[in-house]
């Protein structure tokens, strides 16, 4: 690797932080400057992060690793790196942040400086979670990132923003603190005086203890995902947050839960993970069906999208619970898809809200005539959200169901019900909003997508199709890491596996 890119991850972390500091030091009145600097910095971060993709080698190991002692007495180090599980999530973060800043260009009118500062800090925090390879570092990013999100919801949110912000904060904070205790217990029992994740993964933990530690971590991650029944913070936070907040929340923050399972809970506590996988699977499927059913009865567009996230993330968790290469690959892929399609849906709902200042489905109808381009984009994204073949959603859900079949056919059958329901609630919503006569006079003459809005949406639309057609471009980078994880779990729980046997379920035609 050429020297400038030896520290690419550190640069990715520092760039938004430096940008935030610069913006914070400028005068409060120069709002366009804040927006421009914010956009510029986030675009630069994205440009830098693309180097990760081009330099990435399709192997299972950690890449772009950096390690620096931080608190030597406790074996804590600044250790970062990416592998197939985290690569695309980092890219997703750097990709969505500039879009969010661009998307909020005119809808955020107050305290622009603070908004840009918090968005950039949030970006750094999210990247940090995905690249951290030290438990302490991971926890620092995991928690620190709550603060900017809390402010985003609480300052720029809608009517019940304070309630939603506090609920979001306390819910996630309560979930994570027990994880901290689990980390400390792990540190003490592992006996290697280190918080390094790869080192701890290599040091087996007593299976009896694993269950407790797994549960403590799983609670933190399950709240973040969110898995049923820990999802109740999500509709409030999503609905009350400003558009950019909802996009980041749905697009990236929720992925930290699934990622946490893959990076920490499962490899650190494989015995417990295998033992408790049925529980995770059942909760995931309940989430799929429950989220879809609740979406069906929503009268508020944003709430509908929010509850659909519960359903979509249920698929992700099913793929993770299956603990097969295909399932895990599908889960990671579906996390990206959800980030793209739900992110886009929140943008779209936000754009409609900017025009009408309402999100009630009953206020609309016949918008197809007034806003044809908007309708086209909305329909396309909706199709991706309900996993129509040819869109990204299809690949992800298909891989997950395929990977979960050997885990439990019954759960797969039940989860398929969620797909049907998804089609129902999404298409019904599309019908109510766009088809029929344009009866509401307030909807007459609504402007169609502007240039700025189109600029935000086009990359998302393009990606949802590209990821539907050219999925191997993405999955071949995910798969080796997913396979390594699955193999690690098998070796730990059932003893060493012959390489062939372990690799056998790892070659589904669909993933190729």
């Amino acid at each position, binding site marked *: 690797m050429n020297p400038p890119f030896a520290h690419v991850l550190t640069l990715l972390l520092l760039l938004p932080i430096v940008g935030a500091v610069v913006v914070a030091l400028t005068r*409060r009145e120069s709002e366009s400057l804040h927006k421009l600097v914010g956009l510029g910095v986030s675009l630069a971060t994205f440009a830098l992060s693309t180097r990760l993709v081009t330099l990435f080698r399709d192997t299972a190991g950690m890449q772009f690793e950096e390690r620096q002692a*931080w*608190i*030597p*007495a*406790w074996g804590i180090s600044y250790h970062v790196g990416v592998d197939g599980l985290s690569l695309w999530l980092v890219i997703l973060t750097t990709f969505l942040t500039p879009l969010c800043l661009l998307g909020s260009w005119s809808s955020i009118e107050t305290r622009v400086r603070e908004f840009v500062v918090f968005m950039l800090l949030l970006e750094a925090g999210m990247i940090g979670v995905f690249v951290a390879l030290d438990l*302490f570092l991971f*926890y*620092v*990013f995991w*928690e*620190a990132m*709550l*603060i900017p999100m*809390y*402010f985003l919801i*609480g*300052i720029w949110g809608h009517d019940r*923003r*304070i309630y939603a*912000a*506090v609920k979001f*904060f*306390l819910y996630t*904070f*309560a979930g994570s*603190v*027990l994880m*901290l*205790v689990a980390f*400390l*217990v792990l*540190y*003490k029992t592992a006996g290697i005086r280190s918080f390094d994740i790869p080192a701890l993964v290599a040091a087996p933990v007593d299976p009896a203890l694993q269950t407790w530690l797994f549960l403590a971590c799983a609670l933190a991650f399950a709240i973040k995902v969110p898995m049923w029944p820990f999802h109740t913070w999500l509709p409030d936070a999503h609905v009350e947050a400003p558009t950019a907040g909802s996009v980041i929340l749905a697009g990236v923050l929720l992925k930290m839960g699934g990622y946490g399972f893959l990076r920490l809970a499962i490899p650190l506590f494989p015995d417990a993970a295998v033992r408790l996988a049925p529980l995770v699977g059942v909760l995931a499927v309940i989430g799929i069906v429950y989220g879809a059913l609740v979406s069906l009865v929503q009268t508020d567009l944003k709430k509908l999208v929010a509850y659909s996230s519960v359903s979509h993330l249920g698929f992700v968790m099913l793929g993770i619970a299956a603990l097969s290469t295909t399932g895990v690959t599908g889960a990671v892929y579906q996390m990206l898809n959800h980030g793209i399609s739900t992110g886009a849906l929140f943008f779209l709902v936000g754009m409609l809200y900017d025009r009408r200042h309402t999100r009630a489905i009953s206020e609309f109808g016949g918008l197809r005539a007034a806003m044809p381009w908007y309708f086209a984009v909305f329909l396309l994204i909706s199709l991706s959200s309900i996993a129509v073949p040819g869109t990204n959603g299809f690949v992800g859900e298909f891989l997950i169901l395929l990977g979960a079949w050997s885990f439990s056919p019954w759960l797969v059958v039940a989860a398929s019900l969620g797909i049907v329901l998804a089609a129902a609630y999404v298409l019904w919503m599309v019908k109510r909003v766009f088809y029929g006569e344009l009866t509401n006079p307030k909807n007459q003459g609504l402007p169609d997508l502007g240039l700025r809005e189109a600029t935000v949406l086009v990359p998302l639309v393009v990606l949802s199709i590209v990821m539907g057609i050219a999925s191997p471009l993405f999955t071949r980078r995910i798969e080796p890491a997913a396979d390594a994880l699955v193999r690690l779990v098998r070796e730990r729980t059932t003893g060493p596996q012959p390489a062939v046997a372990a690799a056998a379920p790892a070659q589904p035609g669909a993933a190729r």
Partner: protein
Amino acid sequence: MNDVLDLRPAVPAAMVAVTGVVVLLAQAFTPKGARAPSFSLSLAGLAGALGSVWLLWSGSGYGAVLAGALAADGLALFLQGLVLAVAIVTVLLSPGYLRANGLERGEYYALMLFSVVGMMGLVASLELVSMFVALEIMSVALYGMAGLDRRRRESQESALKYFVTGAFASGFLLYGIALVYGVSGSTSLERVERAIGVAGAQAQPLAVLGAALLLVGFGFKIASVPFHMWAPDVYEGAPTTVTAFMAAGVKAAAFGALLRVFDYGLGGLAQHWQPLVAALAIVTMVIGNLAALAQRNLKRLLAYSSVAHAGYLMTALVAAPMVAGEAILFYLVAYAAVNLGSFGALAALSKDGAEPLTLADVAGLSERRPALAAALTVVLVSLAGIPVTAGFVGKFYLFGAAISAGRIGVVLAVVGVLASVVSAYYYLRVVVAMYMEDPVGEDRWSHATPAAAIALALSVGATLVFGLWPAPVLSMARLAARSLL
């Protein structure tokens, strides 16, 4: 140790004491109408003392004076440095606040300096009687400071309450010291430790009772439940800068003495007092945080939060002395920075009797005083124990230390982190008021004086720097904790 005439270990405390006398005299000899240079004198004296502590720390200054009663070992120097730093920041905070509240009197600085002398003696005492004397020097000065604003009833109440409960605590301490002396035949901690090691089972009940009484006495000073009743009233009634000084300084000094007495002198009885400490820690964390939930007055809220923090600190005491010492010493540094920041921000805010500050009083602060609101946010986040602040690293070590003690420690840590979640709610309520609510009425807030701004910048800076880069302070704390071996 043998060189009787080597008084170097006593130099820092002596410098502060002399400065205190000079401040008083300067006050007396200042012509009417002119202002006595109390502020600069105090600052110079404290800075000089801090410098000499540093020289002792980095040089070969370890040793003891007064026949082994006062030591200049790692623990003493670490905490003396901390107490001096706390005093310096408090002095910086003071002029603006005193002027705004009509309290500009020279004895304020003198009393603070004498109290610092007491704190420095408290953390340096290797002997129970001198420890008691130092504790009284510290406390008597503080009683006076708490009642400085004598026109305000709350301030009078604060002083009286502090005095009465303080006297009560002194009684327990003395009785405890007497019992320990009865068992060991000495008040020197070194001899106490040895005597308890060799004492048979028949001497044990007496020693345990003595330890329990000492624990009650210290419990008052560190404001642990159920000996915390005075804290909210005293913290609320005292002038805010005095509250800042008490919260940061007294806790550091009292915990330093507690560490030395229990983890060193009474270390042999650990299996007896540790369960007691664990139980106290749990009720302190739970009750402190639950009571803070109900507070509307910011000073009372912070007072209950200070009670809760005594509980967090106590969790580490179940660990081995070195581990506990390291974690507690680091946390005391973090806690001092955070408390000076939070009470200091309140002191910088208040204006011509506009105290007490309620939540409603800070509504919309971020619009009017963005820097101050940001500073207060950082320290509140640190109090809640959220990264990237010193409060998080501190709690991480405290609970880490507790967990190293086994099952009981895990229970303590779980209670501790859950209590932190509760605390996040009331800390965040302040942030909500500052950032998410609109300002009410006209702008009544005062501007921070340059000196107060420096003090706040120091506190907030320390909170962030020790949160991001704790290793240097941590290794110093580790070095200091060796004194407990």
